[in-house]
């Protein structure tokens, strides 16, 4: 349900409801901390890289869903944003693979 902006003019300002915002912040903070720990403990390689990318996507989900409020919007708007993004994420992944292929050709 999207937030509606009531034009209230009775002068009383309701109390702030910020719990969800701070919970989301701490989740993002924890994920970033985990990424940092991984960067210094796990040796570099495909496994570590995939974990980074998965954690980044989780962070992106929380920022888009809670901070940008998309989770609480109408389904049509959610899909209008998510579906093209999925294709673009595929494109980025595909180009990583293309880069690897070009490397193989250049260094045959």
């Amino acid at each position: 349900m999207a937030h509606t902006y009531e034009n209230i003019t009775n002068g009383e300002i309701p109390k702030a409801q910020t719990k969800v915002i701070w919970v989301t912040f701490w989740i993002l903070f924890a994920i970033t901390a985990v990424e940092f720990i991984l960067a210094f403990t796990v040796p570099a390689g495909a496994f570590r890289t995939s974990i980074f990318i998965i954690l980044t996507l989780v962070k992106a989900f929380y920022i888009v869903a809670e901070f940008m409020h998309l989770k609480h919007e109408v389904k049509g708007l959610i899909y209008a944003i998510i579906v093209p993004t999925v294709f673009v994420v595929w494109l980025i992944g595909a180009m990583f693979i293309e880069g690897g292929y070009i490397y193989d050709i250049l260094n045959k």
Partner: protein
Amino acid sequence: MAHSATVSTNSKTGAWFGGKEPMNASYGKLMMWYFLLSDAFSFSGLLVAYAVLRFKEVGYYESDFAKKFSSIKEAGEKFIASDAYWPIPERIFDAFPFFHGQHLPLIFVGLMTFILIMSSVTMVLAVEAGHRRDRADVEKWMLWTILGGITFLGCQAWEWTHFITGTDKGVVRDVWMNGEWVKQVVKGANLTANEYGPAPFAFSFFTITGFHGFHVFSGVMINIIIFFNSAIGIYDRPGRNYEMVEKVGLYWHFVDLVWVFVFTFFYLV
């Protein structure tokens, strides 16, 4: 132009004549989402180009130099910057202001990430205050967001300066000049050569972080305008609301989101 986001079911105007808002979102909000999607495509284009540039080069751990060591860990410890392979980012970005010469890998960029995420949190708090029409809180949280944005820009400026200036001694490279190989000292970085790795390393760093920094800068400018509008009470007038704060908040969160991706793909991968 005053906009209220409530749904009208006026049968006189109906769905196709402006009587109902598509996707239950106002015109301005919908257009901001569409703009953000198109901007995401632009950044994805840059990241795609970076992906191809990065992976057509030898990564450090696959290079002949690193393969001589007995383990990945040892290869990491004995890393030397060279244009024969893509460098390890955390060994290049290991400086911190006022700690000259100390190796603090990724600490500064971690601080920048924290500052930007914090400014996103204060932005959400400003939007939440706008929902309650709490003007004082909106002003307070918008000011913190603007401060966070300016701090991030300052940090990025320091990072660029340090990157361009380079290490104290620089690196000796073989450069093809006038028909022969000549030894030249390369110090710091510019768009054609850098002392840290192959030329695309600095080039893509400047392009991607520069593009993102430009978005942060324009976001700060827009935030200042909306803060000013809110402070002089435009959104408190009858018939108006704080939805502009929410729209501008969407742009700011997008900027944060892009940084999360840039941070991962440039500094961690």
